[in-house]
């Protein structure tokens, strides 16, 4: 589904990603871990099509198509979803109106008519229930004044509405209390199927107890320096990153 070859990316002439190789197949869950500032969020933004980042080398294929030239919205229409580490506040646009617009624009791009209002309402209700989101919450301005946990839950609500093929969850677990983590994780698990894939960016093993990864990668200084199975996450939890840093820097 996703294939990244030797990806180099920079922002303002500063190289951040320095040769990433990653393949994610349908049905798989990949976890990406790594110290602060190693380039995890940059990688997710580049996959999602943030123009600020310049791809200087390498390529990204999504469903066999090179997506280099595609805009962020075109990538979204193809089924790429990014749950932001820091969701943006948009005062004046309600959660409901925002998600309606996102869904109908995605449908428009696929040549489909707007979703009938009744169906939309039903879908919203269903997904809000799945994530235990209060209905009142949906009429508030998007992310404005939301607590850290509410923002993250709202990201997953949007993901549930949009049903992407590839979901990249950038530290969705940070800021969630234990109950919220369980709710969000079970939401993600319910949406998982053999046809879609998830990339989890996290610092904590905790989330991986709920959403069990098939692969764990360590990103350090813009490169994937180690990959393994779910036991790698346990090892990192125990030993930290020093041993990996030493290996790499040696």
């Amino acid at each position, binding site marked *: 589904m996703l294939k990244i070859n030797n990806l180099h990316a920079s922002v303002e002439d500063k190289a951040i990603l320095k040769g990433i190789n990653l393949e994610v197949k349908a049905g798989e869950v990949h976890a990406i871990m790594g110290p602060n500032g190693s380039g995890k969020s940059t990688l997710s933004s580049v996959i999602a099509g943030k123009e600020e980042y310049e791809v200087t080398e390498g390529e990204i294929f999504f469903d066999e198509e090179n997506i280099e030239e595609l805009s962020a*919205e075109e990538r*979204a229409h193809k089924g790429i979803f990014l749950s932001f580490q820091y969701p*943006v506040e948009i*005062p004046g*646009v309600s959660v409901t109106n925002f998600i309606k617009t996102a869904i109908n624009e995605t449908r428009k791009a696929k040549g489909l008519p707007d979703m009938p209002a009744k169906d939309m309402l039903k879908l919203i209700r269903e997904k809000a229930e799945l994530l235990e989101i209060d209905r009142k919450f949906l009429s508030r301005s998007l992310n404005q004044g939301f607590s850290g946990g509410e923002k993250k839950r709202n990201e997953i609500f949007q993901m549930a509405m949009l049903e992407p093929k590839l979901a990249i969850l950038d530290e969705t677990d940070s800021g969630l209390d234990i109950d919220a983590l369980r709710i969000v994780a079970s939401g993600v698990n319910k949406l998982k199927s053999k046809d879609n894939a998830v990339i989890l960016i996290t610092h904590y093993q905790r989330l991986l107890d709920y959403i069990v990864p098939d692969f764990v990668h360590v990103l350090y200084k813009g490169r994937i320096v180690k990959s393994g199975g779910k036991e790698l996450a346990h090892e990192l939890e125990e030993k930290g990153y020093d041993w990996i840093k030493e290996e790499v820097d040696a």
Partner: protein
Amino acid sequence: MDLKEKLVSSFMAFENKVDVDAPLHQIRNEAIKIFEAEGFPSKKDEAWKYTSLNSILKEDYSVFPKQENALEFSEAKSYMLHEMDTYKIIFIDGKYSSHLSQTTHDGFDICLMSSALNNPKYRLVIENYFNKVAEKDGLSSLNTAFATEGAYIHIKKNKLVNKPIQIIHFSTGSEEAVMLQPRNLIVVDENSHVQIIERHQSLTDNPVLTNSVTEIFANKRAIVDYYKLQNDNENATLIDNTFVNQKQESHCFVHTFSFGGKLVRNNLHFYQNGERIDSTLNGVTIIGKKQHVDHNTLVHHIEPNCESHQDYKGIFADKSTGVFNGRVIVNKEAQKTNAFQSNNNILLSDKATINSKPQLEIFADDVKCSHGCTIGQLDESAMFYMRSRGIPEKEAKALLMYAFTNNVLESVKIPEIKSRITKIIAEKLGVNLGFDL
């Protein structure tokens, strides 16, 4: 002959024609003298530093429309709020159109300035109110000198006007270029409530210069809710002089939506003559090309315990220019004044400009006054966030701009106006968002 000379010399002929014995004779004569002395403002005037009328004054305007023109409802309809029942006072090239209007004298007078000026029945109101709050600057005086027609609205005590009133000034373009001087007088007596919508609309691309004066008197505990919808053609210039005199406990809201025209200058000046008065001035400006919109506001707090709220939002594309000059005066006696002002702007191109200047003159010590001005671009991180959810760039921009203007739209109390304005904004931005905010 330049426009000023032309106006001054045609005044004589005009006065003779009107009636030398008319009560306004003296007021008019004084007014033309002021105009003669002051003329049109130039960039040398501090208040006109960023707005030049030079190129506009070069047109050869006809100052008295030569013929009466009619307009079919079908031609006028789209500019009218026809989806709801309203009173209508409609003018075509400065002349009243009884055909399109719906006036009343039942419980309140919603009719014409010309009949009010000529009918002894209204003499007292005219004497008490006409030209009483209008300032005596060159442009307002010019209007006063030629004032013959416009809306006359007098809502007597304890009346709730059952539907909004539309005042629309059409120009048909039957002449090459025309100058109009509409004059509106609105008197709202104790405990009464009225909603008014005002619009100036030209129907062709022929140049029009409108120099309008509106006097609003909100007496004790009156509520006046006023909407100015400025979405005129590219060759239309509007100088809107609106003066509001408020008495105790009255509330007056003026919303100004500026989307069109070649040049628009809004002089919107409030005088608070009483305690516990509330004045609200809200504006949304969205322009592009080489359009120019200048908001010149004044709130004069004269007595204690009053409030004023100003919230102006501007979005400027292409080479458009905006000016916001918000003056707040708080007299020494006006303790416990709360005066808030904010002016936020988004520049969509690096050739667009905005000059924003708050002017606070506070002479009382126990007051709360604040002002804030921002000038920015659209938030890039918000753009990426929206686009990453599948909302295309153009729609994402539009949504952000809607959001930016949203709190002003929220304060519009007539839903039909709100959806009308939402539609105009969507048209301006070239998108269809599929929902009303």
